């Protein structure tokens, strides 16, 4: 366990030294600060009475804060979910290839580390990075809107956690690809293609309806089966709190499905990594 932990810490140290990761953190902070300073919400007895952005009145409905701000919370959920997945793909695509850099990999393999520990440590390190970023952004939004409206909800945090779980499946593909082809752009592209395919697969029934019945449609339906349903999880993340009885069995199955898919990709990466000579 200790070697895995040291790989994990090593990756986080490496991330903290990367300027563009710091730039993303600074960007999130800037967005949160802008939101905190520019957004003025006038709440009377739990009802949103007026909204101002940079001092300019915005025409908003007057009603219960949670209902009136529903479009805002839905937009925040979408931004957190899809934004963190997109940024996560580009941020993490480089870690695998840099791990396999000539000189560095030989040095790492010379340490008392097993190969699976090296990969698992990298995987967990990247996930931690994405989780910390997501929690920072979601807790920031929650705090700002909570203080300004008096309406406290864990909805943005739940969306951020769902995004982190969805990212497991994406990073599984990114890391496995980088083990086959040591290229940040190719592994990043593989992750991005899975991201798109995962959204399309979530609308399987609708998309399948566009195909004529036959082999093409059957092929599409078969391909969709193992794909992570990223769009479905996104819809649940947006609906949280507004659907009176969310189907928790469905949500749990989706979350576990993403974890298993990411794990399966990691296993394929390990299969290749174990036999590779450096």
């Amino acid at each position: 366990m200790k070697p895995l932990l040291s790989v994990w810490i090593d990756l986080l140290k490496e991330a903290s030294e990367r300027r563009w990761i710091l730039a993303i953190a600074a960007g999130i902070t800037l967005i949160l600060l802008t939101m905190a300073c520019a957004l003025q919400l006038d709440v009377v007895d739990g009802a949103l009475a007026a909204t101002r952005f940079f001092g300019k009145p915005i025409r908003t409905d007057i009603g219960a804060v949670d209902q009136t701000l529903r479009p805002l919370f839905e937009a925040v959920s979408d931004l957190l979910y899809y934004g963190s997945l997109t940024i996560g793909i580009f941020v993490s695509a480089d870690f695998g290839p840099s791990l396999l850099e000539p000189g560095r990999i030989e040095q790492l393999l010379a340490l008392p580390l097993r190969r699976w520990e090296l990969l698992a440590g990298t995987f967990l390190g990247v996930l931690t990075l994405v989780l910390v970023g997501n929690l920072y952004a979601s807790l920031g939004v929650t705090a700002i809107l909570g203080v300004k409206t008096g309406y406290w909800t864990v909805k943005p945090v739940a969306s951020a956690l769902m995004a982190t779980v969805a990212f497991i499946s994406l990073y599984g593909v990114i890391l496995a690809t980088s083990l086959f082809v040591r290229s940040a752009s190719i592994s990043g592209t593989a992750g991005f293609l899975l991201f798109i395919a995962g959204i399309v697969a979530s609308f399987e029934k609708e998309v399948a309806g566009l195909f004529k019945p036959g082999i093409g449609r059957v092929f599409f339906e078969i391909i969709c089966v193992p794909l992570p349903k990223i769009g479905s999880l996104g819809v649940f993340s947006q609906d949280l709190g507004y659907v009176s009885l969310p189907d928790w069995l469905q949500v749990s199955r989706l979350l576990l499905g993403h974890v298993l898919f990411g794990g399966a990709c990691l296993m394929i990466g390990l299969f290749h990594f174990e036999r590779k000579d450096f």
Partner: protein
Amino acid sequence: MKHRRSIWILLALLLFLGAGWLMTSEFASLSPRRRPPKFPSYMRQDEVVRMVNRKHALMLKAWDSATKAQRENIENQRFDPLLVALSAVRTPRTLLIFEIAALEKLPAVQSLLNCMPKKVKDRALKFKDKTGIDPFTSIERAAVAGDMLLLSGDFSGANWGETFSGFQSEPYGKDGMFYSHSGPNDAGPRGSSFLVWKDEMIVSTDDPEMARRVVDLLEGREGFEKEGFPELDTYGQIYGEISVKDAMEALSDSKDDLAKRFGEAISSVKIHVDASEDVVMTAEMSGEDPDRVNDVAKSMGAALSLLRVKARSDEDRNFTELLDYARIHPEGGSFILDLALPLDFIQRSLSNCRTE
């Protein structure tokens, strides 16, 4: 080494299978999301057609001080007889028009009708057999304005002798027939005087003079200025205006002095109810002073919010669902209150009703 590698690939296969099973379309596909209610805010195409089809070429007489152009306009334009008849009632008053024929076909109303006690259905059947008037098909619209009730539709199959047995009949105007109780109690209690016009309108009021004025207007003996309700506002299945006094009474239980401020700031309240899918209502309130109107809008928003919180804490599901979509849209000098009851909620609530 080779053995361990085969474990990875075996594990990968198992995990893929597991992921595929967990995320099969049965569980992962998106169920249709509940669409937000559509609030009536303008006349739809079918309602425009309905409005146009209702217009008749009536021989109306312009009011005395009308200009030549206004006179020509009144003489050449086609009008909806019900809206003309409603102009007989002086304002301010509460006026509501119910599109009975349209309402009857709607899913929410069907659910309600299915819950109608058998006794009531039997009574309606007996009434139809006796009078030739089917309350569900003969009446197209019903309007309540002040103390007057107007029914419009196709009453050509009506047996008026049976319908008004015990009443004294007297022709009035060209196409009117006045039915009233004989004897000294001519004015009678509310609804005891009826006037039937052209087998297409029944007027019921406790003021016989008002019923006669309706026919005078429709037949061009009394000066006509404008309809009792603007034709472009005849959208939805229930629409009309509420007098400020009646609206204040509805608000009298509210905290602060909301009812008083409402009375001071608001001069007109128009409502539209649409039950095509969910049952939705909009109420447009306007007044002369935009600041005071805006102040009332904010207070009403806060009151609705507090009611919702209270309904939630009291676990009053019906009231909570009604208030979930309650919203106020400020429009500058006016504001619109939206209320909605989702159809699935109505159907759920009425699913266990007893009709015996």
